[in-house]
């Protein structure tokens, strides 16, 4: 009786494992290379066309695919995996994808931005946070069109080479400091009158003699500081053997 139970539970576990391992792989989302995949039907036709043009134009500039993918269900995947799988084999190597899943109630619905290829580096973690914060209010308000549009515009903005506004004043400040160092260095040549600091010129030849010389080791101290982690980069993870970046949340 006991052995039967054990065999049964073993089979059950194997069955579960098989399901988990095989089922998602068989149900990988596909998109046929379309930039706006509105499976959840969140946009009307006019909006979809407009977003498509926007994504196409901007994507061309950055040599990448900018994708919006909506779905009603994650089919048992995590939002991150689902978004990552959307990329594989369907798009340009360099792509960024916004996944909106409208399954569940308020606060349970997922959205995720996934980056692949060059886009991983181009969209840093902090910038992804900015985009997420920008679109979250629209998602919460049900204005998916504006959310998608904001996402496209901001991704493009961040992907294009850009510098924070305060970089220019910093550059000017450093430039000014260096200029002052140089100019004061030149100005120093005009000042040749100063007191002597010592009498080194008048030391009697070979008169220096050291009679006692001791170097005594006393003690040592070790101080350690935590190494600064790379804060301005992009974190990556692996899905289906490929490398992705990105970040998501609930709304």
């Amino acid at each position, binding site marked *: 009786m006991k052995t039967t139970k054990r065999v049964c539970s073993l089979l059950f576990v194997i069955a579960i494992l098989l399901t988990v391992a095989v089922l998602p792989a068989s149900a990988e989302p596909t998109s046929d290379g379309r930039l706006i995949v509105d499976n959840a039907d969140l946009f009307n036709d006019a909006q979809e066309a407009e977003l498509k043009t926007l994504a196409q134009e901007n994507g061309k500039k950055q040599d990448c695919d900018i994708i919006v993918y909506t779905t009603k269900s994650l089919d048992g995947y995590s939002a991150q995996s689902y978004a990552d799988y959307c990329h594989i084999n369907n798009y340009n190597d360099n792509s960024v994808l916004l996944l909106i899943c409208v399954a569940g109630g308020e606060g349970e619905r997922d959205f995720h931005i996934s980056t692949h290829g060059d886009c991983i580096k181009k969209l840093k973690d902090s910038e992804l946070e900015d985009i997420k914060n920008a679109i979250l209010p629209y998602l919460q308000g049900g204005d998916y069109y504006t959310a998608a549009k904001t996402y496209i515009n901001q991704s493009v903005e961040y992907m294009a*080479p*850009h*510098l924070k506004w305060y*970089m*220019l004043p910093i*550059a*000017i400040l*450093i*430039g*000014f400091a*260096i*200029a*002052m160092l*140089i*100019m004061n260095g*030149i*100005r120093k*040549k*005009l*000042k*040749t*009158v*100063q*007191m*002597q*600091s*010592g*009498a*080194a*010129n*008048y*030391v*009697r030849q070979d*008169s*220096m*003699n*050291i*009679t*006692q*010389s*001791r*170097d*005594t*080791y*006393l*003690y*040592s*101290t*070790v*101080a*350690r*500081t*935590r*190494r600064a982690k790379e804060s301005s980069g992009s974190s990556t993870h692996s899905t289906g053997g490929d490398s992705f970046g990105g970040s998501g949340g609930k709304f």
Partner: protein
Amino acid sequence: MALQEYKCPCCGGAISFDSTLQKMKCPYCDTEFDVEALRGYDEDLKDEGSDDLEWNTDAGSQWSTNEEGSLRTYVCKSCGGEIICDENTAATECPYCNNPVVMMNQLKGNLKPDYVIPFKLDKKAAVEGLSKHLTGKFLLPKVFKDQNHLDEVKGVYVPFWLFDADADADIRYRATRTRMWSDSDYNYTETSYFSIYRAGGIGFDHVPVDGSTHMADDLMESVEPFNFDGAVDFQTAYLAGYLADKYDVDAEQSINRANDRVKASTEDAFRNTVQGYATVTPEATNIRLHNGKTKYALYPVWILNTTYKDEKYTFAMNGQTGKFVGNLPTDWGKFWRFGALITAIVSALIYGGMWLWQLL
């Protein structure tokens, strides 16, 4: 008061020391005399001078008491003109006949210098020194160079006190050495502390201290060093043709400055024997000076004065080595123009670099 002119034994003209020949030379008949040869002649003249020249006492009432104390009046032996000068003046020129004169009484007894370094460089060299000093100075106002009116060029024997001293020092230092390494999570800094002890001695010869209040101390220290190998035993003949002051700051007052300099150099010299540490801080310094000897010497300095925008600029040249010093004014317009240009270029490069860094 004695006033001494060196008369040419040949023609009777007033003769002076020629820095190029390093001899006395008569400007009238071009006869040259060895300084050594004049030594005996010099001795005779010294004794002779004191009897026939007197204070011009009747002029005293015209001077305030302050001035009376600090001014001396002499009568020129050549032309009879009245020479008014400072109480410390030891050699000058007669303003009427330009003959060089030496006030003998200023250089007698305790006031007699032990050594003199004769002028090696003449007035021409001093004027050339100034124009060289003004070239290659980017921020010097162009007008200063162009309108370079020399108000005055004078060769002055400046009184210096020379101090010899042996310094014994024992100095204790606290020194550290650091070693740094890191693992994946932490950076480590190991600081090792050492106690260093050095004891020994060092000697200094002829450390000069300006003995005249007429000469700015910083200006005089700036034309240093003087090479004492060029010094000879003092003879008044060397002063002919130049200005000379006697000291008005005595050796006692000057010794502190010499002590400071000797101490600073002793500390430096000992500090240089402590090598191989990241930081070295002296914790206890004990420097004792002994065998202190003081000598009185006259050192040759060319003084040049110019005026620019109502401000006086004084330059000094070492009459032995030719070292030329003197602060110069700054062209502030040029300073800020070029400062702005460099700021623009450097900022543009940095900002461009930031962009480039973004793109890569």
